[in-house]
């Protein structure tokens, strides 16, 4: 293995490959900032370029750089304009956007950059050491466990149910789950709930829904309420990237835990960065002390660091099944697999033995890529954050433009725009009534995976037998129940105690 690492090092640090990493990261970051162009589309665009390069390690390094850059760039639009372009950065906007609203955009971007860097780097180290061993662990998960894992992912909604809104949060989750059933599911060959509208046959698009729930209501709110447009802090603070010593101390353990947890979730094919980010958020909120828990969703640096380190570590983790088993764990890695095959590289257990220079060069350039991203982005943050200092009569059209473009660009389907505006207005009304919108999106994202895996497990076991037959499923479900119930139980006990005090007994 040591020999392999040396070959990889010399290959990764060749001038061409360094240029590839830097170029890939730059392209990824800037295109990734536009909502609607996630890592998957950017990588598809770059594949012909990568194939013309010819050298498989250089091509893969370029694509890996683009992948990281895109994820990194995606969190920028989540934080600045509440427009998560990729499912895995939805959780980033939960606390990132409130921070930006408080005038701490610079700080939020810095926290995100550092968490991403640590998540990606720790992930790369774990990948280097444990890749072959983890490949077998990934195969322990059957449909039943994936179903249970999605349930655990759903428990992230508890974070929004904390402030006496349990019923509202559950209702919104249900609504999200219902919306996920629209269209042709993976299990039936007939369209469901499309009301005869052809454009609904493939279901609601993620980007459309994310923009309708987050970005569009935000823009409408800015129009309706002029006082909101002013960020609460001074404009100097927007550019201020400094993280205080206390904050650094608070986020360090979060990053450590979530990098490892995120990586492990990323290793599972099909779970990926989205689940990792939601779970990371839920877990960190649950184990935080009570007073910090209140801060989650209102601009907690911990709440920002958790999903950012988790989703980057998970992206690295998703290379484990790709490189060792040849199984793509996500849409993005499926495209990467296609590129590998086009370059005459067969991923799988033999890759490490047959072509160690490719295997190790990729892993080492992941590390280099993370470093490059950090170095490139830290100096740019003050300029990127300045977006928010733009006067609101320019900012609103800007947000609206990117929101609408994001929904249109992936599918070239103008009906998406109508759906987006319709849903966006509904979402704004719901926000007026104080319903949290994030649970809806979580329900929607997890809904189809939840249903598919549940139905598969039911089919394989001819019923609910898998609950008893597979102890890991049961354990995960119990964990999910605890994650949801514990906070409300704690809140209830605290309330009872308060009542008791005021009664004077």
């Amino acid at each position, binding site marked *: 293995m040591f020999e392999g690492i040396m070959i990889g090092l010399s290959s990764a640090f060749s001038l061409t490959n360094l240029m590839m990493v830097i170029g890939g990261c730059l392209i990824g970051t800037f295109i990734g900032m536009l909502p609607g162009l996630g890592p998957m589309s950017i990588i598809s665009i770059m594949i012909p370029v990568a194939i013309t390069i010819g050298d498989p390690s250089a091509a893969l390094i370029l694509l890996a750089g683009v992948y990281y850059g895109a994820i990194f760039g995606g969190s920028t639009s989540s934080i600045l304009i509440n427009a998560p372009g990729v499912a895995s950065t939805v959780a980033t906007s939960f606390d990132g956007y409130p921070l930006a609203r408080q005038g701490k955009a610079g700080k939020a971007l810095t926290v995100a950059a550092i968490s991403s860097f640590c998540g990606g780097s720790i992930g790369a180290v774990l990948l280097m050491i444990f890749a072959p061993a983890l490949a077998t662990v990934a195969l322990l998960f059957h*449909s039943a466990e994936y179903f249970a894992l999605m349930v655990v992912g759903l428990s992230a909604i508890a974070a929004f149910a904390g402030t006496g809104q349990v019923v509202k949060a559950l209702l919104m989750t249900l609504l999200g789950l219902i919306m996920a059933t629209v269209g042709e599911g993976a299990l039936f060959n007939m369209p469901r709930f499309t009301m005869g509208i052809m454009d609904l046959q493939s279901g609601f698009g993620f980007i459309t829904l994310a923009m309708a729930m987050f970005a569009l209501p935000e823009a409408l709110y800015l129009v309706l309420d002029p006082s909101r447009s002013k960020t609460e802090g001074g404009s100097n603070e927007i550019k201020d990237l400094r993280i205080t010593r206390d904050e650094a101390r608070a986020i360090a353990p979060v990053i450590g835990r979530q990098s490892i947890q995120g990586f492990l979730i990323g290793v599972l094919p099909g779970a990926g960065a989205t689940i990792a980010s939601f779970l990371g958020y839920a877990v960190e909120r649950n184990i935080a002390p009570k007073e910090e828990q209140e801060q989650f969703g209102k601009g907690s640096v911990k709440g920002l660091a958790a999903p950012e380190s988790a989703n980057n570590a998970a992206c690295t983790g998703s290379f484990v099944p790709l490189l060792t088993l040849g199984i793509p764990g996500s849409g993005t890695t499926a495209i990467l697999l296609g590129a590998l095959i086009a370059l005459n590289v067969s991923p799988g257990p033999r890759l490490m033995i047959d072509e160690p220079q490719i295997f190790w060069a990729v892993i080492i350039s992941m590390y280099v890529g993370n470093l490059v991203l950090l170095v490139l982005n830290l100096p740019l943050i003050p300029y990127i954050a300045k977006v928010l200092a733009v006067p609101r009569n320019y900012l609103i059209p800007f947000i609206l433009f990117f929101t609408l473009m994001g929904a249109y660009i992936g599918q070239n389907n103008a009906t998406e725009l109508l759906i987006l505006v319709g849903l966006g207005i509904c979402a704004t009304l719901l926000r007026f009534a104080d319903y949290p919108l994030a649970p809806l999106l979580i329900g929607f994202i997890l809904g189809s995976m939840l249903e598919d895996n549940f139905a598969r497990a039911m089919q394989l076991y001819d019923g609910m037998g898998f609950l008893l037959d597979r102890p890991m499923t049961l354990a995960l479900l119990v964990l999910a129940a605890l994650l949801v119930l514990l906070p409300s139980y704690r809140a209830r006990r605290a309330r009872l105690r308060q009542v008791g005090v005021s009664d004077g007994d």
Partner: protein
Amino acid sequence: MTFTLTRRALMAAATATLALGTPALAEDSKLDSIHFLIPGGAGGGWDGTARGTGEALTKAGLVGTASFENMSGGGGGKAIGYLIENADSNHGTLMVNSTPIVIRSLTGVFPHNFRDLTMVAGTIGDYATFVVGKDSPINSMADLIAAYKTDPRGTAIGGGSVPGGMDHLVAAMVMKAAGENPTQVKYIPYDAGGMAMAALLSGEIAALSTGFSEAVDLANAGEVKIIGVTSDQRVPAYADAMTMKEQGIDTTFVNWRGFFAAPGLPEERKAAYQAAIAKMYDTPEWEEVRARNGWVNIHNSGDDFEKFLEGQEEAIKSLMQELGFL
């Protein structure tokens, strides 16, 4: 939007000029442009086929320029509807499609079928296969059928399509030809090839019904064993794999991809498209695109294409009726 309209208008104008100005379009004259209509989003199989074909045609100098338009919606039905409704202005358009157009017309996902379009040519295809994990005790179709006979409920077959979709139909077709009742076969759908592969390797399913080119990549990587191919003869790309026919299972299946044009397309225009596509196969530019994507050349032009589609529709229809999907 304006851009597209203008471009389309220009193209229609160009087409009209061609049709009016040179009624006797010479056989070997070069096509000025082709507009490819892709019924799905960027990055899918249809997208790759259209863009790859366009690239080969233009680079080889058979067509002047190629433009591409993604029109997703309705599982491909939106683009078909568009092409039929705007047939007169779309003589310069070729729409890519594949086996699902046959299946989805049958299930009524969209109201049209391939007969409503001008069938230009089937260009590439992929056979279907059954694969098992490398450590599986199953080594041939006979082993799989034996395992199925001992434990029908525990021997599930997975695939990357919905029940009633292509992978399921192939699984049912093969099991039926092997003398089993296709409605009893436990088919487990996965939404992507990767998930289905993971399920195969983790032992959740006993065998996987999947495309040949995908299976070859995995077999070369040492992950799976191919136990049966739905081709007539062994495929040179992986000659170790036995066909279904060799093992006494008399069934063949090709998942084709090809091109359609608007209904009422002038004959000479159709002939020009078919000539360009036929010439494309001999160019190194096409060979490069084909090899890069692992496609198999299966060329079916004009009437052959129509006959092939009708045969496939018939086979799929009776199978779906038997399975209770129609």
